[in-house]
């Protein structure tokens, strides 16, 4: 009985439908917990319409394919959820699945299972297998590098508090005759567990609130009309969301596009061209653009290689002096008229000729320290993974509190505490199993 894995199996941010694949012996049971229809009663290889819900809240309207073992890709029970609600919703659906018992799949893990279960032959699997092997090291990092140092320290601290409670229970069990060890009763551990719960809840909130994870990075593209802001946006997000014309001032509203860069969502905002104008509608656009500069995390400021720098542009350069910014010189395929000596750091591109776009992406990554890891989506997903593990721990803690209140024996109470501790350990990649014993021996004075 392998554990059940889940992952978004389509490229995120591209295409209208995202598919989440779940594979493993509990696949049906897990999806059934969050689906509006009873999937245990449906036939294999059917598609089912309904909603994914988190408790009572409906998250997305979906189609769910049920494929029971062995005639599936992995030879295990497989469920696929077709989500319609865009990347944020899809991620939310995945999180709910992880909270309900699925584990986030490692890169290539579905293929690995297919191979190990004899579903695909070596030739088909070779590429993936090599990828898994060579990515082994980065996969190890993935699980631990996504939480900020601060959060990770908080979790370490939480774990050590929890292990103190657990080892107190353990020492009572393993050395029952020691009178000088405080005898733990359910009443005496309850305040500690409740205090622990409060702290855990705080961290979950903190993790969820973490701006980068939840909202991504707000990127504002600014520049005079017709320098190629919308074109750049389009080539960044590779779809025609903004309307591109050669008439200056076409973009009057702020257009948003999403780009997933190593798992971090970039919300790209294309502003109306900044230009002194008397046009009423456009005037509002300019005001909003200036506002965007203030509220965005990163400004991409585009200048036209083919035109001399204007007074307004110089003024704008001054305005963004202290911001996190990337200065881009577009249209380098055309004749240079721009005095680049005014700029100290810039990237030369041509959207039309598709030159230098990747340099912008690289610079964004550099500025925000996104991903030493190159495999797509993992960063965001491991955050989802971390949060789901934190939530699992919280569930364990809640259960243990119920058990304490129901006067369950301390040994039973401890089961959930230990599971919470293990889940927290997984968040930060600590699986050192002798930690508990070390704690026992270092904190308590025992012996013959």
């Amino acid at each position: 009985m392998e554990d059940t894995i889940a992952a978004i199996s389509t490229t995120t941010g591209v295409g209208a439908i995202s598919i989440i694949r779940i594979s493993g012996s509990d696949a049906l049971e897990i999806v059934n917990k969050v689906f509006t229809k009873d999937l245990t009663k449906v036939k294999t290889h059917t598609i089912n319409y309904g909603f994914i819900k988190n408790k009572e809240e409906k998250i997305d309207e979906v189609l769910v394919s049920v494929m029971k073992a062995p005639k599936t890709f992995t030879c295990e029970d497989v469920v696929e959820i077709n989500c319609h609600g865009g990347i944020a919703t899809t991620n939310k659906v995945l999180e709910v699945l992880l909270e309900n018992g699925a584990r986030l799949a490692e890169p290539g893990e579905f293929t690995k299972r297919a191979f190990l279960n004899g579903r695909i032959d070596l030739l088909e699997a070779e590429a993936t297998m090599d990828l898994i092997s060579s990515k082994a090291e980065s996969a190890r990092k993935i699980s631990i590098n996504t939480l900020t140092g601060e959060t990770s320290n908080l979790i370490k601290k939480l774990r050590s508090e929890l292990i103190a409670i657990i080892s107190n229970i353990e020492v009572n069990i393993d050395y029952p005759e020691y009178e000088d060890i405080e005898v733990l009763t359910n009443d005496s551990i309850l305040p500690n567990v409740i205090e622990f719960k409060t702290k855990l809840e705080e961290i979950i909130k903190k993790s969820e609130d973490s701006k980068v994870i939840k909202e991504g990075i707000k990127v504002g593209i600014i520049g005079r009309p017709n320098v190629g802001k919308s074109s750049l946006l389009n080539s960044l997000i590779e779809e025609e969301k903004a309307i591109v014309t050669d008439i200056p001032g076409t973009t009057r509203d702020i257009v948003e596009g999403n780009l997933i860069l190593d798992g971090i969502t970039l919300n790209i905002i294309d502003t109306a061209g900044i230009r002194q104008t008397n046009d009423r509608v456009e005037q509002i656009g300019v005001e909003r653009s200036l506002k965007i500069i203030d509220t965005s995390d990163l400004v991409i400021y585009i200048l036209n290689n083919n035109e001399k720098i204007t007074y307004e542009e110089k003024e704008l350069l001054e305005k963004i002096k202290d911001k996190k910014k990337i200065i881009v010189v577009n249209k380098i395929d055309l004749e240079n008229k721009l005095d680049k000596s005014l700029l100290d750091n810039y990237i030369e591109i041509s959207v039309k000729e598709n030159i230098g776009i990747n340099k912008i992406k690289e610079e964004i990554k550099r500025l925000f320290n996104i991903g030493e890891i190159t495999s797509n989506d993992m960063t965001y997903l491991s955050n989802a993974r971390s949060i789901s593990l934190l939530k699992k721990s919280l569930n364990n803690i809640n259960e243990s509190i119920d058990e304490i209140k129901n006067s369950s024996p301390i040994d039973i109470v401890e089961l959930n505490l230990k599971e919470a501790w293990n889940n927290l350990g997984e968040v930060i990649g600590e699986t050192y199993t002798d930690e508990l014993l070390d704690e026992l021996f270092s904190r308590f004075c025992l012996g013959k």
Partner: protein
Amino acid sequence: MNYEVIVVGGGHAGCEAAVASSRKGHKTLLVTGSINNIATMPCNPSIGGSAKGIIVREIDALGGVMGEVADKTLIQMKMLNYAKGPAVKSLRAQADKITYPKEMLKLLNEEKNLTIKEAMVEDLIVKDNTVYGVVLDNEEKITSNIVILTTGTYLKSDILIGNTRTRSGPHNEKPSMHLSDNLKKYGFKILRLKTGTPPRIDRSTIDFTKTKREDGDKKYYTFSHTNPPVYNIDNQQPCYLIYTTEETKKIIKENLNKSSMYGGLDDITGVGPRYCPSIEDKMVRFSDKEKHQLFLEPESLYYDDIYLQGFSTSMPKEVQEKMVHSLPGLENAKILRYAYAIEYDAIYPTQVKPNLETKVLNNLFTAGQINGTSGYEEAACQGLIAGINAALKLEGQEPLILKRNEAYIGVLIDDLVTKGTREPYRMLTSRAEYRLLLRHDNSDLRLREYGHKVGLINGEKYSKFIEKKNNIEELIRKIKETKIIVDNEKRRIGTTVYEYLKNPSTNLQNIIETYNLDLKYNDEVIEEVEIQIKYEGYIKKIEREAEKMLKNEEKQIPEDIDYDKVPNLASEARQKLKEVRPLNIAQAIRISGVNPSDISILLIYLRKHYNE
């Protein structure tokens, strides 16, 4: 003279090994340094304890003898952790240090396939990495198909008291001088370990009015699954509780550099157990603690030694005198035997396979302290498994390897052969990840069938087990059918007893009495049924986890795998895998330093090279 099995050492491991092998019909020789010292208890006068008591039950369930002998010779019995949960209840007996070895010797003498010989073994007969017998200190050779080493603390052992180091076994017995060097010569890696024992005090010189009396339980218990109790609950020996004083602390601090471990000797290499520190260790490591708890435990009804539990030390004798006299009630106490530390050789247990045969020499098995463990129960259970597996090997049968979800014995052996140990290994409930399954109450349900299958559980022992098992099934069936209409406060219940029992505040015995239910079963059956139903949800959850592990146990790793040929393994993982040579993926996962990605790589390699 040729034997099928030679057991070297007559301690708790050796006795179980010898009995198992001879009861399985194999001509067995037990070689011991001294027949008078067979199955002695050189340290604490108790058998069982948290987790250890469950091991004794497991030994009994499989057909070992420790439990029966302890039952016959105990002078106090307690059920530990009674209120802390079903999985952690465990028996501890104060065993009589005179009658326990006597009973064991009597039992050994009754085995018709077993011969006992007094001699020291100093070497093995080895040819082509296979053992063919033993060589005694007088150079006499005795041949056998299999040798089981259960040498305890006797390999090159040194007694340490203050600044003196004396080559000697416990209590001035003769150690084996050359066996560990010879093992090294054959390729074993040798580990130096250390343990200690507290002073023994003359009972008549203790003022017990200054102590707190600790009595045995007022309920009958046995380690045995078959035999009725033979002791009298009203006639148990008490233990006594005292605490160290300010004066004790002062004496230890002033004399610390005289302790063998703190400067008295500068050539100590042995690693001592963290869970069993000497009193000076405790004073140093927990210096902020005002006092430390000590127990006065009677060693026997037949002599006056009182064991001072918690006071093991390697201080010189004159300091020990002062330390003991600083204790309440022991102001005028006479020390009959001084405390000492002992250093001894063991082998790195990762050189042993899960059947307890060594990887270095074929047909050589090891059990007990030589494998790095500490404790009578830990030794005995290994002895039993080594004895059974030696016999099974002679018979050409598959070995008995207990899994981590089946027995503490399985946890213990797997820990040793998979993770190794650097300090004397003691069993703790915390070591068992599936401990909810490894209970005192269900030891027979877990292991009796194995005992039967290997031929050690027959006749009454087996039939009583079958009867209990049937009764349990019958009772569960009945309470699923029996409905409680109203409770004794006339509240409407309307559920089956089975459902009603899931409520934490209910108790099956009470339900049966209150409702006059026609369910007449003995306490054991009722307790078992109650635990199974009350904790069903938890038990199922743990069982599911265990199943995942078992699935990985099924994924065998071929014995001939060359880890140097597996691409991309992390170098630490590669080295550990080469050292441990796990039998299956589950065992590989448990090796520290082997990461999930290494396991993936290994699985893929196995699939590529060994399937289709």
